[in-house]
């Protein structure tokens, strides 16, 4: 049945690519934002006193923001499918929960991956240049850091209605990105403590490998593993509640 699951995934991807409105929003929006913010500052070699160039700093910021949105967008697709009763249609097929989850997670990752590549290219046009090792390390840790967001997207999709999922994702990503330090680092105070407990913080940390930052320490791995377990469980429970199989 694994062959069948892949066909399903392939068609899921086809549908996403053909949904022009989504595709444009998911890719064009971060690109436009990047050039709007980093463009005028493209010759700022050191942002504040960080020693990091503006194009580089904003590139990684938008990568965290863009990939978070990409992962959660699977939730929007799920909520829409539920609203037209497609989930019931799937329940009278042999499509296993595993194949279903695989299709949702793989396609979300492909969109996130594309977001990363597109923003790297944008950064390169504004002069961003990093050693190959750093590109790879950052990309790798980013992809791992997106795991809890994959689960969150699925959970949201099975709990929220098609109308509320859009604002929920928008608001959620905005808040998580802010607290995670996407736009500017939150280095002190109570907010810093709260931020460190959030998965978005560690996603941003992964993206900061490009800025010379280090990979996660023990705290980072523990927080991310914890969130993965919690959100993964939530996703499975939400899915099961929504698709009570007999």
């Amino acid at each position, binding site marked *: 049945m694994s062959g069948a699951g892949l066909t399903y995934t392939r*068609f899921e991807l*086809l549908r996403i690519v053909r949904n022009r409105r989504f595709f444009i929003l998911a890719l064009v929006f971060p690109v436009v934002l990047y050039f709007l913010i980093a463009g005028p500052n493209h010759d700022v070699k050191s942002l504040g006193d960080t020693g990091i160039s503006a194009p580089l700093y904003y590139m990684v910021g938008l990568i965290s923001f863009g990939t978070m949105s990409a992962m959660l967008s699977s939730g929007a697709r799920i909520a829409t499918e539920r609203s037209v009763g497609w989930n019931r249609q799937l329940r009278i097929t042999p499509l296993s929960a595993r194949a279903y989850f695989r299709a949702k997670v793989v396609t979300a990752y492909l969109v996130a991956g594309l977001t990363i590549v597109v923003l790297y290219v944008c950064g390169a046009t504004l002069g961003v240049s990093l050693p190959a090792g750093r590109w790879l390390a950052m990309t790798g840790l980013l992809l791992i850091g997106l795991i809890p967001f994959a689960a969150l997207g699925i959970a949201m999709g099975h709990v929220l209605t098609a109308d509320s999922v859009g604002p929920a994702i928008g608001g959620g990503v905005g808040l998580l990105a802010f607290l995670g330090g996407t736009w500017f680092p939150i280095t002190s105070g109570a907010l810093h403590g709260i931020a460190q407990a959030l998965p978005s913080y560690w996603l941003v940390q992964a993206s900061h490998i490009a800025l010379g930052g280090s990979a996660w320490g023990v705290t980072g791995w523990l927080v991310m593993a914890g969130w993965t377990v919690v959100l993964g469980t939530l996703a499975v429970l939400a899915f099961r509640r929504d698709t009570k199989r*007999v």
Partner: protein
Amino acid sequence: MEAHAAAGIELSGLTKTFRGPNGPIHAVRSVDVEIRHGETVALLGPNGAGKSTTIDMLLGLLPPDDGTVSVFGRTPREAIAAGAVGAMLQTGELIRDLSVRELLEMMASLFPSPLVVDDVLELTGIADVADQRTQKLSGGQTQRVRFAIALASDPELLVLDEPTVAMDVEGRRGFWQSMRELTSRGKTILFATHYMEEADANADRAVLMAHGRIVADGPTTEIKGMVGSRTIRATLPGVEVAALEALPGVAGADRRGEAVSLNCSDSDAAIRALVQHYPDARDIEISGAGLEQAFLQLTSEPEGVAVAG
């Protein structure tokens, strides 16, 4: 596989109760139905009778509160996994951004031994829209695609919940033509409808449901006879109900003031006898009972009436 194929569909003591705003809703009350391999059965009943809830339990979409479902000797889930069941649910739209052909390929890929997509397109009469995006289809075309999806797995059992509701006359005709093709291939078919005429034209057997119970189960012609009784109303003072009930073709009579109402098993014999014996009868009306009224009649009988089929 052979032992499974010989077994049919068995619903035994199927019960489902929902929590309603004013107390429990007994949607399905201990339903017993057996469907043999190759039968075409109409599940007939007014809206709210419990047809869709019964079908949901048959398909494994809803867990019964009591009773069992057996589909060719297996649970619904097993039967679906084997590709033995295809269903057209009452409501549901198609996902968008795929062509009809692509959608069918996607669905067919989920099953162990599906039909060739081109064959399904031919059988359901949608070959001409095969390359159109699903969001561009008309209501009738969408219904036919949903029918095609039900057929994609090459199922032994086809379950259709009010399949022709959104179709026009042309679509309905084409649909039942495809169904006849499937019947000739030996498929077992169960369809829910609230139209007696549709059940009569397309099923060998009708199972009547009302208020969650089966009130009749037998050959469509016999059910039609029960349901197709006519009523003669007339203004006729001064004649006793007992005398009216003694007329040929009259099953029962009621009086309300000067008006009488005769429930007739044979309205032709009844009207002839009425005007012969009681020429004073005036304002005479003969009307068909209609399904809703027939159900009221049938459900007022103790324990419902089962017709051996």
